[in-house]
């Protein structure tokens, strides 16, 4: 019996064929997407995608595959911390997460997330096993501190999507991947590359980015305050800003020192999550959050009860 080779040399100029047919293969009649359109309509206003841990955000904010969210905020306003809690929520929803934090060691990242999962500041040693067992097959950390390159991040996204089947990739932060605050073209290219990879691999990329310094910390930054190129916010699908109410902290400290009532001050939120770009949703607005200091968790109301992140799947 003659054995036929699986692969043979080919005289067909495939490279040229691909280049020549690029337009005809990709410019398609509108009815190509008929089934998808029917699916959207049949699903009513069904919102898809992973949600944040707080129920009051579920109707408005979602994190779907193929999209990029820009997480913005000033230094020390808790964007990475809040995103860490969001990642625990994604894990609880069964969606794998890869964290590429170039600003914090894996140990520090995991320790902070463990406190959030334990709902207190001093989890016992036996909780470590429980926490890590829960994360098995669902959370990975890219062990790279300091600077990275767009190529390295691209490779991590491809690996995370194809080998780990992760659905969320966190890149913290843009400035650690693209050197030079005024390197606008490189920033634009990197965010463009991120959007393409997210779409091609069906993952959601969470990109952390700093906002420029405003004259006063009581001002809430928005998408126009992002550092660097304006094309960063233009290209991403969602822009979220984490803003900590530092004035409240100061008011509380003063009230406690003077022995005056704190109820009214406590009712003010500790932080705001501001959405001022939501390409695939209709909602833009602010979400008030209260901070539970010992667990490092953000909570949805002033009762400040931390959530059990390891059991909650759609939030409370």
């Amino acid at each position: 019996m003659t054995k036929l080779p699986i692969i043979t040399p080919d005289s067909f100029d495939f490279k040229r064929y691909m280049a020549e047919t690029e337009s005809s293969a990709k410019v398609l009649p509108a009815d190509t997407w008929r089934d998808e359109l029917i699916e959207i309509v049949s699903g009513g206003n069904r919102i898809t995608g992973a949600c944040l841990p707080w129920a009051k955000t579920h109707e408005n904010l979602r994190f779907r595959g193929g999209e990029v969210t820009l997480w913005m905020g000033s230094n020390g306003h808790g964007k990475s911390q809040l995103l860490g809690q969001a990642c625990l929520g994604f894990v609880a929803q069964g969606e794998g997460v890869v964290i590429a934090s170039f600003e914090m060691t894996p140990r520090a990242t995991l320790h902070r997330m463990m406190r959030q999962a334990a709902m207190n500041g001093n989890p016992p040693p036996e909780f470590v096993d429980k926490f890590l067992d829960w994360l098995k097959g669902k959370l990975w950390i890219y062990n790279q501190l300091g600077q990275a390159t767009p190529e390295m991040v691209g490779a991590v996204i491809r690996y995370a999507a194809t080998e780990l089947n992760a659905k969320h990739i966190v890149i913290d932060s843009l400035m650690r991947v693209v050197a030079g605050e005024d390197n606008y073209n490189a920033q634009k290219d990197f965010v463009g590359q991120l959007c393409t990879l997210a779409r091609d691999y069906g993952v959601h990329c969470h990109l952390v980015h700093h906002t420029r310094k405003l004259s006063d910390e009581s001002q809430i930054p928005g998408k126009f305050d992002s550092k660097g190129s304006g094309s960063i916010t233009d290209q991403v699908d969602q822009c979220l800003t984490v803003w900590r109410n530092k004035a409240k902290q100061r008011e509380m400290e003063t009230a406690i020192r003077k022995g005056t009532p704190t109820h009214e001050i406590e009712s003010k939120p500790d932080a705001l999550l501001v959405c001022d770009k939501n390409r695939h949703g209709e909602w833009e607005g602010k979400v008030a959050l209260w901070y539970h200091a010992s667990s490092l968790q953000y909570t949805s109301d002033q009762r400040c009860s931390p959530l059990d992140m390891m059991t909650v799947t759609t939030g409370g």
Partner: protein
Amino acid sequence: MKGHEPIIAMRMQGYTPREVWIRVFDFEPKYYEWDEPSKSLENGFTARIEVYPMDKGALDFRCVTGLVVHLSGTDDERVLQTLKHIERAKPLRVITSTANIFIDSASRESRIAA
């Protein structure tokens, strides 16, 4: 859709698989590392492309241009939709089979059960 990238990469380098097996899935299967469709050729198996339920709308099958394609699946309607996408790429021959369908583009033999 998985498995098309290595075929494109190979053809870009002047090589071609003898045939391509395309399977339309009703779910996204879990794989062993060696069984991943993107690694099929690398691991000495035949070229394999898998189409999943989320693969709707535009599917680019230019990687099978001029090749023999074996298309199968369990959902007749989705298999026939996939066949339309494949035919746009002008393969040499497509043999389509499900429990109710048999279509061979070369012999013009066609059987679709009622």
